[in-house]
């Protein structure tokens, strides 16, 4: 439906009553959707890899400072996105630590992935860790007693904790794809390059094109619903 609305607006060459001052061609809208998905899905995939590894290491091992690490992860879940954007912008600028070793990434998709990674990783790690810790010790003991290796025990625990882990990934995805502050700062909202659904919505709303902002918002909500539905299916409908 959204596509037909856009098609009407683009093909007719005039403003429809619904889409006042329609600013983009169809290709530009797809590009915005593509950039949003590209940045958020890569960031969430990397965050999941990192978060699950940390959750297993912290959840399975007792070591000095473990409580501090858990507190740090939980604190990270509430990082303000604008602050994260500022820190990442500095890190990837020519004067920042990454910029000085050749990773000058200001106003690039890679910088946006990095900032979304910083935002999503603590959420995925924290919720996954809680799910892993929540698995009964008896289950791990049983896997070990059946002749399981450490990897077998870890995989069995992950399987037992999968609903919590999927919830964590969903929460991380929600944080990443709906985030506007940090991607605006590190990406610069460059049309065709770093413009995402959220930064485009912000721009359109500021310029008074509320109808178009609402359509982009509807696309964003539909995408999140679609991805949640897919993960729900994978999780057996219990998430």
């Amino acid at each position, binding site marked *: 439906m959204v596509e037909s609305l856009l098609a009407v607006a683009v093909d007719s060459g005039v403003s429809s009553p619904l889409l006042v001052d329609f600013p983009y061609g169809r290709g530009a809208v797809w590009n915005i959707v593509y950039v949003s998905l590209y940045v958020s899905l890569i960031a969430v995939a990397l965050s999941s890899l990192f978060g699950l590894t940390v959750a297993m290491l912290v959840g399975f091992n007792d070591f000095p400072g473990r409580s501090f690490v858990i507190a740090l992860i939980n604190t990270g879940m509430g990082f303000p996105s604008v602050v994260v954007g500022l820190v990442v912008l500095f890190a990837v600028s020519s004067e920042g630590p990454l910029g000085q070793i050749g990773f000058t990434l200001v106003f690039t998709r890679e910088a946006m992935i990095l900032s979304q990674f910083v935002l999503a990783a603590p959420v995925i790690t924290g919720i996954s860790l809680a799910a892993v810790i929540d698995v009964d010790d008896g289950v791990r003991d049983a896997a*070990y*007693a*059946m002749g399981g290796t450490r990897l077998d025990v870890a995989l069995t625990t992950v399987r037992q904790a999968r609903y919590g882990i999927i919830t964590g990934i969903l929460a991380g995805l929600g944080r990443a794809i709906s985030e506007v502050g940090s991607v605006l700062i590190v990406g610069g909202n460059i049309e065709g390059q770093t413009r995402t659904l959220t930064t485009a919505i912000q721009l359109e709303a500021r310029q008074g094109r509320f109808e178009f902002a609402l359509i982009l918002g509807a696309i964003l909500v539909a995408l999140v619903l679609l991805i949640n539905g897919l993960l729900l299916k994978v999780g057996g409908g219990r998430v």
Partner: protein
Amino acid sequence: MMKGRYENGNVTETGRLALAGVSHGFDGTDVLDDISLGVNPGEALAIIGPSGTGKTTLLRLVSMFDRPDEGTVEFDGTDVWTLSERERLDIRRRVGMVFQEANLFDGTVHRNVRYPLGIRQSWPDRIRNWLSGLGRRKANPVVTEHLQLVGLEDDQFRPASSLSGGEAQRVAFARALSSAPEFLLLDEPTSDLDPRNTAILEDAIDAARSRGLGVVLATHDMHQAERVADRTAVMLEGRIIECGPTEQVFTDPEDPRARKFIDGELIY
């Protein structure tokens, strides 16, 4: 059947799977004190004693969850903790264990019972069998055979979460046996079960022993030890104070504390 001999006030016995001079504790508290005890294939050894006397700790050491503070855990005369992790894994896979709780995994009864078979495959085989569904089909006869032993062969595809406590414990028993271990450790396996489920499990224990398995049963139920075990060890305050043929231990124990415990006069 050899009667245990006393050394330093502790009964010492040996076997193919054995503890030799094992002492162990947690947080500065001694739980086991100089235990030497063994079991051979085809025999059932019961360890009886009041709750909190160290029976579970003893079984966890035999099952190689933890390394003893002192002494050795031996398989065929070899200290298992001098072996590499890979070699120890091979021995661990010859010793099954059933806990007081069933500790079943999510999924069906079938998945639980075939679990030990799956983790014994190489990773390429596991992935190939998982993708083709061959692993499940290959496991069918083994799963059915072991579920028959506990009378649950018609419940293979029930979710484990839908089982009663007694049924779950019977599935846990079938799971422990499905990979054909040489020894089976049972930690109070029937303490929460009704008489019917207890009888089914005791029959299954008897059947397993008849097939040549060595069974170690930790229990505070003295009547169960009498029904199931060839030999019985009485454990008190982290020490084995009496060990011998079950009938002899129950009718004519040498240690006066063992006699009091068996007569129900030693209350903890």
